[in-house]
Each structure stands twice: as structure tokens, then as C-alpha cells.
């Protein structure tokens, strides 16, 4: 199918989008969903497996209690009902990353159902999204495609399988169809996924790092002609793994659907793949008979019957919801409405909170996270939180500035180097000799040079036009490659000219 798309504005003139999301959250339990293998990221391939996670002959699953607790807590945080009786089921399909060639999941009796959350759009407009269900399941292993030109599946000659991730606990959160978002649908998509990420992080049940796949989103999009209430055929864009990608993918699919429908063609019900490089989706495989997953109750596991008292206890112990927390933090930090919304939309609330907790002022924390760090993330096309700069780094930078070891300008360079993985601020400053020149001797030499070259300026200053001193500071800073403390240079010049 051609990738022809309509402009977003044109699409919105004629159609109303209907969205739906399936967000998979990887839990940060110590062990896997059904066995005691470690749940850890980044280890050597196939070192976090047991016979159970490899699906060897004869093995049996046993449910991780902590994972069930996390699922119940998430269900409660999503304002869901918790199922009095919940079953596991097998979803049967063959794929080499799935050790048993079935996924142990939940089907008609999920642990949590019928919830809703209210998210805030960028301008503060609330939007309520209904949650159909949240269910427990296990993750698959990781495939690496080899031998092809692109490292993609197409054209690969063979694939390598690492089962470290196989069996890691997942909770899949499924929304009901979302209507009424209109032209804010892409924005809503991003805000919704950000909200889920915030909730699971707030609950402490997931590391919630999208770049590691801790939170993954499948986005369903369909269009209805304006005025219609009948849902159109939907596409499901798989594994959209950053907030900005979610927004772009939804936007793209709306434009693509609009083009297809406007041309009088039918949308194919299919999975789509999002490509960040081309910012477009391509066709996966159509929904077909191959999707006959033959669900049936998992005979190796018994029902989960949450004790109502336990559920109530978990409810009572839930942390403050993110929205409440935001209200509190806004008051504490003294940010304006706009400043605070920008912080929230940039997704750096946690970073700023941690930075303040580590000793920075609210103003400084915002200045760095919303300033140079945000700028750099944008330039590099990544999420702010995923740049590699930590709250501790920011506090350290602030203290280096306070000690006049560096100035703001150098600090910006330092941040770039931190993001390149060169270490802590002090290490970067040391390794790259970025400390401001504090040796007065070096400065005085440069000042003498500058005064010799600009006797007219010297005369002006001596005549009482103190502000003209800036013209002398510039060449000194230049001579010291920006590593001088401009304030000190000014002091020294004035001293030298006998003005205090």
C-alpha cells in the first residue's frame, strides 16, 4: 500500500479519530512471573534463565506473589475493580522468542477491569480515559537478526535468541475505545502513555524506562467520518517505544487512514510497524486465521483469588496519586502555572524533584532541566530523562558553579560531555581542563594586554563610565577561552584602575 498521507488539518476536517491503547509495563520484581530466574536487564545472554524460563520438557510455572501484588496495586491506581477470582490462560502461537510456543496470560478473567484515569493535556485540559482491563502475563525473549543488510528481520539470514527477558512479568493495560479527542488525539496519546509511565513509576512497580522497553505501547487508530458514530476499521501500530514516537505514530496513522478513506479505499485491519527514521508506519501482517490463539485456562496454574482485606490494605497503602503530588510540588517549588506545565510536559518532574532533594534550589533545577538538558535532548532526538544526565550531576554542576570552578557557559559544555558518557561533572572538568582560570597572574597579564590595546576604553572608565569596562572583559575572556570568571576579571580591572 502506498504511504500517501493527507495533511493532518485536512484529515481533521473530515474525520474523527478513535484511539485505543495497549500498554505493556514490565515489572521490576526480582524474579520472573512464573519462575525464580532473575529479572534483570543488560546481563550476558541466556544467563538469567532456569529450566522453566527456557520451557524445557517437564517444567511447571509458579506465580510470583509480588507480581500479583503489583498488578493489584496498578489496578487500584487505575481505579479498576479487582477480580474476586482471576485465572491465567494460555495464548497459543509459535514464535522462536516464546519458549513454550504459548504465552501464559489472562483472557476472560483479568486481575483488574473497568477503570479510568484522567489525564491533563498540555494546556491543562482534563481528559478521562476508560480502562477496559489490566492483566498479568509474561514477556518474550529477545531476537537479534543477523546477516541482513539492515539488522532488521527482512533479509536476515538467521536470528539469535536470548531468553533472559522470557518470562519477565508484564501487565498489559487495555483502554476502551477513546472518542472525542479530535485534533488533539496525537497529543492525548503521548499524554496518556506519559501518565501510565508516571503511575507505574510512582507505584514503584516498574523502572518505567521506555528506552529499555519497560513501557511499550501498541496504538490502535481508526477514523469515523465527521458526524458518524460507527467505528471504522482499525490499525494497530506495534511497540511504539518513546513518548514522542507515540504522538507521531498516531498522527501519522490518522493522516494515512484519512488518505485511504478519502480515496474511497478500505482500511486493512492489520498490524503496522513504526519507523522512527522515516517517521512513518509500514504494513505488518494482516489479521487472519493465524490469530486463532486458542486461549484456554492454564491447567498448570490455579486461580488467583485476592483476599478482599488484602486488596483494601493495598488500596490504603497506595502512594499519593501523581495528580495530587503535582499539586503539592507546584506549591512547594513556587513555579508559575506555565512553568509547571512545561516541566510536566517535558516529563522531568521526577528529575527536578530528585535534584531539589539532592540540594539544588527549585529555580536552579528548573533552569538546567528545562534549559540546556532539554535543548540537548531535543537536538539528539531523545527523551530528556534518557539523556544520561542525572539529578546528582545537576547538583554537582551547581556546586561547581557556586565554587566558581566553572561558569554557566562551561557548565553547558560539561552537560554535553556527561551525555556522551564521559563521567561526572568533576571528572569531565578535570579530564578536559575546563576549570575557570582563577590564577590572577594569568588574568592580570591578559588584562594588561587588553588595556594596552584599548587605551580609549581605559580612559572612559577612568572618567567615570564604569559600565564601559565590559569592552575590556570581552578580550580577556577570549584570551582565556571562556574559562575565566568574568566577575573576577571585572574586579581586577577596576582594582587596577583604582576604582572600587
Amino acid at each position, binding site marked *: 500500500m502506498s504511504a500517501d498521507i493527507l495533511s493532518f488539518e485536512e484529515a481533521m476536517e473530515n474525520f474523527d479519530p478513535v484511539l485505543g491503547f495497549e500498554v505493556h509495563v514490565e515489572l521490576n520484581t526480582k524474579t520472573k512471573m512464573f519462575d525464580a530466574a532473575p529479572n534483570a536487564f543488560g546481563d550476558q545472554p541466556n544467563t538469567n534463565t532456569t*529450566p522453566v524460563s527456557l520451557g524445557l*520438557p517437564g517444567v511447571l510455572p509458579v506465580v510470583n506473589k509480588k507480581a500479583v501484588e503489583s498488578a493489584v496495586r496498578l489496578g487500584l491506581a487505575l481505579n479498576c475493580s479487582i477480580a474476586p477470582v482471576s485465572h491465567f490462560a494460555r495464548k497459543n502461537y509459535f514464535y522462536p522468542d516464546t519458549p513454550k510456543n504459548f504465552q501464559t496470560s489472562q483472557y476472560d478473567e483479568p486481575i483488574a477491569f473497568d477503570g479510568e484515569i484522567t489525564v491533563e493535556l498540555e494546556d491543562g485540559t482534563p481528559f478521562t480515559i476508560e480502562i477496559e482491563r489490566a492483566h498479568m502475563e509474561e514477556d518474550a525473549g529477545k531476537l537479534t537478526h543477523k546477516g541482513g543488510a539492515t539488522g532488521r528481520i527482512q533479509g536476515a539470514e538467521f536470528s539469535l535468541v536470548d531468553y533472559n527477558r522470557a518470562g519477565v512479568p508484564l501487565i498489559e493495560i487495555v483502554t476502551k475505545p477513546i472518542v472525542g479527542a479530535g485534533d488533539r488525539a496525537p497529543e492525548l496519546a503521548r499524554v496518556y502513555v506519559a501518565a501510565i509511565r508516571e503511575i507505574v513509576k510512582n507505584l514503584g512497580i516498574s523502572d518505567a524506562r521506555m528506552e529499555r522497553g519497560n513501557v511499550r505501547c501498541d496504538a490502535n487508530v481508526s477514523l469515523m467520518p465527521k458526524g458518524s458514530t460507527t467505528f471504522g476499521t482499525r490499525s494497530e501500530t506495534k511497540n511504539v517505544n518513546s513518548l514522542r514516537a507515540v504522538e507521531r505514530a498516531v498522527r501519522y496513522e490518522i493522516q494515512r487512514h484519512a488518505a485511504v478513506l478519502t480515496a474511497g479505499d478500505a482500511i486493512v485491519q492489520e498490524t503496522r510497524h513504526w519507523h522512527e527514521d522515516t517517521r512513518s508506519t509500514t504494513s505488518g501482517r494482516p489479521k487472519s486465521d493465524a490469530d486463532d490463539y*486458542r486461549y484456554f485456562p492454564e491447567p498448570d496454574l490455579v486461580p488467583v483469588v485476592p483476599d478482599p482485606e488484602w486488596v483494601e490494605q493495598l488500596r490504603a497503602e497506595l502512594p499519593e496519586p501523581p495528580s495530587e503530588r503535582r499539586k503539592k510540588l507546584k506549591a512547594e517549588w513556587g513555579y508559575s502555572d506555565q512553568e509547571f506545565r512545561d516541566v510536566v510536559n517535558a516529563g522531568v518532574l521526577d528529575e527536578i524533584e530528585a535534584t531539589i532533594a539532592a540540594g539544588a534550589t527549585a529555580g536552579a533545577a528548573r533552569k538546567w532541566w528545562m534549559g540546556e538538558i532539554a535543548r540537548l535532548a531535543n537536538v539528539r532526538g531523545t527523551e530528556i530523562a534518557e539523556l544520561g544526565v542525572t539529578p546528582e550531576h545537576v547538583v554537582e554542576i551547581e556546586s561547581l558553579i557556586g565554587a566558581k570552578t566553572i561558569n554557566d557557559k562551561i557548565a553547558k559544555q560539561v552537560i554535553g560531555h556527561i551525555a556522551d558518557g564521559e563521567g561526572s561533572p568533576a571528572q569531565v572538568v578535570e579530564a578536559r581542563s575546563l576549570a575557570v582560570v582563577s590564577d590572577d597572574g594569568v588574568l592580570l597579564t591578559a588584562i594588561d594586554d587588553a588595556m594596552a590595546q584599548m587605551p580609549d576604553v581605559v580612559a572612559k572608565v577612568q572618567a567615570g563610565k564604569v559600565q564601559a569596562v565590559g569592552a575590556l572583559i570581552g578580550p580577556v575572556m577570549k584570551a582565556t577561552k571562556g574559562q575565566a570568571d568574568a566577575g573576577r576579571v571585572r574586579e581586577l580591572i577596576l582594582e587596577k584602575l583604582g576604582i572600587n
Partner: protein
Amino acid sequence: MTQNIIELSAAELAQKLAEREVTSVQAVEAHLERIAATDGRPVEADNPYAGKTGLNAFLHVNTEEALSVAAEVDAARESGEDLPELAGVPIAVKDLIVTKGQPTTAASKMLEGWMSPYDGTVTQRLRAARMPMLGKTNLDEFAMGSTTEHSAYGVTRNPWDLTRIPGGSGGGSAAAVTAFQAPLALGTDTGGSIRQPAAVTGSVGVKPTYGSVSRYGVIAMASSLDQVGPCSRTVLDAALLHEVVGGHDPQDSTSLTDPATGFASAARAGAAEGGLKGLRVGVVKELTGEGFQAGVEQRFREAVDLLRSAGAEVVEVETPNFRYALGAYYLIMSSEVSSNLAKYDGVRFGRRTLPTDGNLTIERVMGATRAAGFGAEVKRRTILGTYALSAGYYDAYYGSAQKVRTLVQRDFNAAFEKCDVLISPTAPTTAFPIGSVDEHADPMQMYLNDVATIPTNLAGVPAISLPAGLAPEDGLPVGVQFMAPAREDARLYCAGAGLEALLTQANGGPIWKDLPDVVTAVNNLPGTTSAVATEGAAK
């Protein structure tokens, strides 16, 4: 001496070991010699699929390890160590149970040469009980069948008549204990795979309450039906082995927390004078009559009469839904099979077969691997199960079968209001000739062997089969089966040992006094009959 040792029951051998009349090494050696004399040698040197020239009860003989475990037990005993009751008593293990250090094949080409990197829970318990493992016994591939003809490695022969089937799927374990190759063996029972072989070989087999013995490390056929249990020549021996392997296992989510104790004492109490007095025995009306061989019926009636004469109260019970049990069983079993066997795909372990034409993609490799690795019966059940679970059919088949399961349980509950145990023949017929069932022409015919054993698997309740004598018309063993309510396995051992004592007395000895000389029979076996083809669909 050797002859003596192998004829001992496990309980007797344990006692002689404890009293140091016999060493464990002697016991293991005696059984290994017996295996060597009766199991036969490969029909074709380089073709394991052609089977063996003898009983072919063993797929692997674990000579070295068994002897070294035995030597350790002897040394420990010598040094005065406190040892478990069955320490030093050798045992054979159905090759569906994974064992470190020995191959585990499930009698399938799919797992040829596979070595498990872990031990099953029952395997660990045998090690903890310090019982030398003699080897792994033959079975129908992945335990699917009632004859062992579906083993990829050739059929096991019935020690009573080498031209006949030993039952299945656990024909290897049943033949091994019957032919004195081992005093004890482990089996698994999904629809009768311990009890039906016990019946047709004249040995004892128990399917414990579902959850009584851990399934961890037991290659799954149908998870909600599978149960590990003991095979032996006497009821007491089965009880002793059940105590060794039973009990809670946190690695099996369906494991009961009940401790596995009191079975041997129940057996001893049942065998004692007056042990059956007042026992209420229910004869299951639906599991007699039409479809049951005359000699089987006759021996069954005689057993019931013996019970009555020993003071048991015999009543007749009706279980109207049992007639649907076979259909429900085949739908549930095959559905679970289709999913449980999906993991055999040539990716992580076992066989990989490349397609001979077309693209070499993983999908094709999986398809070719499963085509070459599975036999006809496994494929048939996998396809049936895939059908029963597929969209549009689930409610009519799998869903309905689960409801029938509820009805069968209700029948049991109602019956157990009226009696303590139920009784029926174990199998409708005695052992039939190898190759006599054409399952392609009539695939249901073989399934009918399980008609009396299946209801207990559906309901999860325990049952024991023990020999009731030889059928007059063919001189082959007949089995009777007691069934008890869930968690009341002790009742089986009580009733079973009681009936066993009555029959031994009535017949002037145990059933095996009439067993033909197996060594002679094996040596006289005409030619080297090749194994029954398992890949029947290729015909």
C-alpha cells in the same frame, strides 16, 4: 541367590538390606543381570527405532550410576548411618520423567539423545531416598497410547505372552516389574497409563489423587489429568513407593499440601485378618457388562464375592455421566496436548529437522521438525486438540467437555455418599496381540481401552489396579480397580492389600506363580521381529 533377590518384593528386599543379608550392590547386579537376560539386544545395530529382541522394557539402562549409588548405600549402612526405608532398593523410571545424567526421550524421536540439565522432583526424591535407578522404561510416545506400540523405539512385549502388548502408555514400567527386572517402577497416568498396563501384565499400579505427587520434571501430556504413581508387584510396595515420591512440592502449583504418609500402614491393616470388615464397596454399574471380555467379568465378579465374604458391604452405584467421560477426556486431553507439545520445535533442545525443499525459514524448520519428530498418534491428538480449541469450536468441544468433567465429579461425589470405595474391572479386555488394532481405520477402538480408567483422571480421584487372576479363556491377567475419594489414597491401599491377600489365599499364591519363564520365551522369540511402525500415516 540372584534368582532369590529378584523375586523379593521391595518391602522384603528392604528388610533384607536392613538386616544386611543382602547388599544393595547385589540387588542392583541381580536386576541388571535379569534385564540383560530378558530385555533383548537391538534388532538393528544402528537403528534404535527397530526396537529390541526381547521385552524392550528399558530405553536406557543406567548401569554405572545404579551400581555406584548402591555401593554408597552399602557403605553408609556399613558405617551405621540412619537410612530411609527403601534405601538401596532399585527402581526403574518411566522415560517421561526427567533425570540428570540419563537421557530422557519420552519415547519420541523428538528428544532422541536429549539430556535434561535438571532433575524432576520425583527423581530428586528417589535420590534422597537413596534408591538406585536401574534405567528409563519404554512407553507410548509422550505417553499417548494404550499399548507402547507408539514408542519410537519399538514396542514393549508383555512378559505373559511376548506377542502381546503390555498395555500403555506405561508398558515398560509394568513389564519391568512383572518380569522381575525391577521390584518397583514409576509410571504416569493421564487416562489409565499406570493402571491399564498393570491390569494386562498382572501387576499393581496406582494413580494417586491429582496433586498427591509432584509433576515437576514430568514431561507434560495433559496437565490437568497427569499424575505420577507407583508400579509394583504388591500393594504394600506401591504404598511404600508412594510415600517416597508423594507429598507437597512448591514447584508444582497443583500440588496438594497433604503429607504422603499412612499408605503402608493402611496396606498392612487391610491385609490383616478382618481388615475389610465393614468396608462399603460400590460396584460401578456403568463399568461392567457390554464391552467387557467374559473372563474379565468373571474374575471381577469373583473378586467382589471374595470381598463380600470377607465382610465388606457391597452395593451397586450408578454413575450415569461416565458414559460421556471418554468423549470429554479425549477433548480435554488432546487440547492440553496440543499446547503442551508446542514447545517441541527444534529451537531450544532436541531434534531439529530441516525442510527438504523450499525456503529455510524458522517456520518451515519448526514444521519439518515436528513432522519428522512426532509419530502418528501424537500428531493425531495434536491436530484434534488444535481443532477443539480453535475459534468457533471452543464452547462446543473444550467448554462442554469441562462441564462433563463437573458432571463426572458429581457422579463420584454421589457414589461416595453410599460407599467408601468403588470397584470395577480396570480394562475391558486382557492383553491383545501386538499390531491387532488398526487405529487408522478405527481410531476410537484403542481409546476404548481407557473407558474404565478415565473417569478418575477427570475427577482427580485416586485409583489402584491389582491382579484378579487369569482370564479362563486366554490365561492372561485380569485387573480390578478400586477408586476412592480425593485425598483418600490410604483407602485404596487398605482395600487393595485386603483383596490381594484374599486372592493370594484363594489362588494358592501370587499371580506370578503362573508367569511363564521369560528368559526362555525371549530366547525362543522367533527371528527379530521389527518394531511396529510408529509413523503409520506414511503407509
